[in-house]
């Protein structure tokens, strides 16, 4: 455990708790983070059946402040930031002029002159550099990642467990909205958002308050909440078909290819990359992200090739065993028109295996 710190990895404000819980720690985007505390499948099912707590403090938290904040956020974001109301959250993508993705993120609107971007840890530096390259009149770009912590409480019991502990009413909070409240006497930004598909919250607080807040959240409901590591976070997001930057998205991939048409507002205000995306839309996509489902012992893995009648037509970007479905699932880019086929062959250790092409999410969650 001490070794990871010695390797120069950054620690989140909750690091000490992970060590005390006996977590298996890994290097993720330069942070020492818990891969798992017990067993990955157990942790995954804990979130689907009850509630789990994640330390996601490694995610970048960038604040855009000043009279030009709204115009700036709109200019860099493919979604309609201008339609966002105070206290609401929006999923969006930042694009290069050629339409490739700089990052995917959530954007919080505190007010017309104050937005927060929650970006991927692996992209934080690039996003900051890229934002600063863009014209930014009357705007301050402030990185508050290290001064704060971010946790996620996710699962069907998240609401009932948390509602009792927060002053004021929570049940009426809409998905993708946030409030500023006190939780165990700690001022927090509480959003009804997450990366698991389950109901739940993401909770931001000052770094100095994070460890004690983490402990109190873990004690909610006398053991009903369990800590959950990155391995389960990945299988949970994959069952929902959610993107992971560096896998489904990168600078050579457009959000249209990734199936994010619902996020890209080509009829709205102008943004960087719009012209390229309009052109791609008009010319038609050459490839498309699809869901892939294998049998119990046919597990897609990143880099596995997909074939149609012996010709390569695609490649897996993320793949895993699905604890909920007890089978292999994955996401893949497939050349058109092969994305319309019901099945393709996936090469697994030089043996072709049939996989079904499906539209994510792989599972249905009843809320």
């Amino acid at each position, binding site marked *: 455990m001490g*070794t990871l710190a010695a390797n120069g990895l950054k620690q989140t404000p909750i690091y000490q708790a992970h060590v005390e819980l006996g977590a298996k720690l890994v290097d993720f985007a330069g942070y020492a983070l818990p891969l798992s505390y017990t067993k990955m499948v157990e942790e995954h099912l804990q979130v689907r059946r009850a509630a789990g707590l994640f330390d996601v403090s490694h995610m970048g938290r960038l604040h855009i402040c000043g009279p030009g904040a709204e115009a700036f956020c709109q200019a860099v974001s493919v979604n309609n930031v201008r339609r966002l109301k105070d206290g609401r959250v929006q999923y969006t993508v930042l694009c290069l002029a050629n339409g490739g993705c700089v990052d995917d993120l959530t954007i919080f609107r505190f007010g017309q002159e104050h937005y927060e971007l929650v970006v991927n840890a692996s992209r934080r530096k690039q996003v900051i550099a890229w934002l600063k390259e863009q014209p930014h009149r009357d705007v301050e770009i402030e990185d508050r990642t290290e001064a704060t912590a971010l946790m996620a409480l996710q699962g069907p019991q998240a609401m009932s467990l948390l509602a009792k502990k927060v002053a004021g009413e929570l049940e009426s909070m809409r998905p993708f909205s946030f409030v500023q409240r006190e939780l165990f006497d700690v001022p927090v930004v509480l959003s009804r958002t997450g990366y698991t598909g389950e109901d739940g919250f993401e909770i931001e607080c000052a770094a100095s308050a994070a460890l004690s807040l983490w402990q109190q959240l873990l004690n909610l409901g006398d053991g009903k909440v369990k800590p959950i590591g990155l*391995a389960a976070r990945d299988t949970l997001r994959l069952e929902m078909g959610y993107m992971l930057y560096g896998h489904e998205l990168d600078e050579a991939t457009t959000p249209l290819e990734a199936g994010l048409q619902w996020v890209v507002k080509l009829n709205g205000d102008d943004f960087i990359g719009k012209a390229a995306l309009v052109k791609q839309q008009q010319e038609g996509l050459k490839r498309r992200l699809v869901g892939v489902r294998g049998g119990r*012992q046919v*597990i897609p893995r990143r880099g596995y090739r997909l074939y149609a009648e012996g010709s390569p037509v695609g490649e897996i970007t993320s793949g895993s065993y699905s604890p909920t479905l007890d089978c292999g699932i994955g996401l893949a880019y497939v050349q058109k028109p092969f994305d319309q086929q019901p099945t393709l062959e996936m090469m697994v250790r030089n043996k072709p295996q049939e996989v079904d092409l499906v539209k994510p999410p792989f599972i249905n969650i009843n809320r």
Partner: protein
Amino acid sequence: MNLEFPDDLYYTREHEWVRVEDGIAIVGITEYAQDSLGDVVYIELPAEGTEVQKEVGFGVIESVKAVSDLYAPVSGEIKEVNDALPDSPEIVNDDPYGEAWMIKVVLSDESELKDLMRVDAYKAYVSDEKE
């Protein structure tokens, strides 16, 4: 977590173990290996009668997060395969040195055992690998 390494076994750099009984090498993977892999969901083993070669892959093990090859610690003919594993791969996590043995090999050259690590050397190897 304290990992267990029985002192009557031979160990490989690829984290397989060997227990020798009457000229037969019983092969499995170590607790360190199962702990690193996480939940095991798939195991592919060769048929009985297959000849395995020292340090050559004989099977595949797949966990929730990764795929790994299984390497033969010694050479010889496979006398018996653990048929329970493909249907219940999770046994590898529960009992890596017992129920989750994988193959039994008729040693073709007992001197190959000298190339394997004993428990103290393996423990040192594992603690190096962690760093």
